[in-house]
């Protein structure tokens, strides 16, 4: 009996380990494959490759679409992240500290963009912007504020999630102590609250940046004619070419985001905040 139990336990542990590694493999394999492909020298994908080269990376430097797309994505993501934080910091403070009617409803409302498919958000915003334009002559669709505003919807849920998680662990007595010592509201925020949720703030900024930077569905509806974000540039390129250029762009993106994650982990310890 005892041996049977031991065997069962051992088998269970093996199966568990196997499942974990299979999961990792499933997640990582495509990325590793892309990484590998980006160095193939042949234009038409085939295995094994004819040879290896950096020509796809060099080629990127001459492709205006990708460069412009990268710059626009960067601008949009930075602005959407800053705006998302500006909204989410006060909202999180109120949501964590406050005990009022409708608190749950507001929280769910702010988290909603995580649940609604991005393509639906994009289409809905497009229609909404057009209606607004018809009514007021303010051209939102295809404008920079419209695009950034739409991306802010994406960044808010991530910011709220990470900030509230950090704020819950912050003893309100610490802020009260600051008040009793003569600190008014904004001084408390700047000197006590924000420094104490700093890890959450950094993580929120990082995640917000990543979701905005990688977003395709919403941008697709809202970019100005002739302009592209990086994901749109990739999509458009794929429509008539299938060479490893895409793999090179993707690899650069992965490296960029990976570096961001690594730096964040160094500064605040990601395991602690996410």
């Amino acid at each position, binding site marked *: 009996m005892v041996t049977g139990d031991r065997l069962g336990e051992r088998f269970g542990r093996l199966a568990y380990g196997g499942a974990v590694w299979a999961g990792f493999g499933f997640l990582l394999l495509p990325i590793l494959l892309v990484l590998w492909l980006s160095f193939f020298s042949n234009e038409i994908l085939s295995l094994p490759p004819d040879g290896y080269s950096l020509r796809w990376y060099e080629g990127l430097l001459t492709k205006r679409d990708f460069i412009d797309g990268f710059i626009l994505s960067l601008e949009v993501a930075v602005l959407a992240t800053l705006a998302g934080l500006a909204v989410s910091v006060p909202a999180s403070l109120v949501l964590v500290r406050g005990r009022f009617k409708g608190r749950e409803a507001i929280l769910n409302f702010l988290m909603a963009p995580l649940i609604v498919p991005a393509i639906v958000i994009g289409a809905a915003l497009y229609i909404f912007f057009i209606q607004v334009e018809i009514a007021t002559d303010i051209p939102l669709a295809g404008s920079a504020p419209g695009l950034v505003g739409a991306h802010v919807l994406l960044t808010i849920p991530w910011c709220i999630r990470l900030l509230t998680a950090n704020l819950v662990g912050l003893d309100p007595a610490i802020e009260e102590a600051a008040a009793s*010592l003569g600190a008014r509201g904004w001084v408390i925020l700047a000197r006590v609250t924000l420094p104490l949720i700093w890890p959450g703030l950094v993580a929120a900024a990082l995640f917000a940046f990543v979701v905005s930077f990688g977003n395709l569905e919403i941008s697709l509806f809202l970019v100005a004619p002739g302009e592209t974000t990086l994901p749109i540039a990739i999509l458009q390129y794929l429509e008539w070419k299938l060479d490893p250029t895409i793999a090179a762009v993707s690899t650069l993106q992965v490296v960029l985001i990976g570096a961001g994650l690594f730096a964040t982990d160094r500064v605040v310890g990601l395991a602690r905040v996410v």
Partner: protein
Amino acid sequence: MAALVLDRLTKHYGDHAAVDTLSLTVADGEFLVLLGPSGCGKTTTLRMIAGFVEASTGQVSLGDRDITREPPHRRNIGVVFQNYALFPHLSVFENVAFGLRRRKRPEAEIKTRVARALGLVRLDAFADRMPKQMSGGQQQRVAIARALVIEPDILLLDEPLSALDAKLRLEVRQELKALQRLLGIATILVTHDQDEAMSLGDRLVVMNAGRVEQIGSPQELYRQPASRFVASFIGRGNFLEGVGAGHRFTTRHGWSLPTARPVDDVATVLIRPEAIHLAPTADADRVPARVALVTYLGPMTEVVLELAGGDRLVAEQASGGWLDRVEPGQDIGAGIPPEAVIGLGAEGATRT
């Protein structure tokens, strides 16, 4: 002038009154202790004084300043919290300097005042530490220094010792008392621990369900509790039910005993265990009593007595002599001086 006056202070949460028309005065340099069971409104009272919660009605005055509607940062009140509430991202020095920096004091003055405050709590050597690197007792002393350095008009402490272990609690308690005497700062401390209250307070305010039950010195509260609630909260006692008339109280079991004060309309009397004088035999001053239980407590021996009528009394007397040899079942004598029989008013009513 009084340091602090609370005038009919009230806080409602919904239709529940957490604090109900509470009035009290703290004299300059006085150490006042708010004592009461959990949930009786002590913290809410303190938080209204500090300005963290708004009073529903009533008034808080600091000196001749009405501060009822002032935000906390303009009150100049030192607050010490149960869980220290130090700024974890700041060094001990910066924690203590925080209030002075808000007051825009020059750097040199900050240096000397922080050093002096840390000296008061014997933490001079710890200025560069982070709070995390210190023990609970040390952290609480930093919190005390941080509250004192701003020279507050009053110092508020909410169960400041309850997060410490028993030995440290005694140590910090002594230090707190010495410090308060030294600085002569008006102080209110909240606790549910009667020992702490008795040993620290010049005056005690016993609270029950949002109201003041009684205010007085530790001696007054012990000797002349106004209600059964106060009597049972401070020290231990025998409570006998019955009817009083003139200078005589008759228990439900028919035992009649003389009292020093008139006990008309009194339904409960209190007899403190140590007020009962035990002797090996009954006599004119001592009623016969049978020993039910003996507990040796070192310097004191506790004896549970059964009286002929059925009344039970707990008595406590210095150990030694015949008392060391007393056995359950033995018949002895119990003397109860008339002044030891204290008539208690109905719940909440003050009676002296």
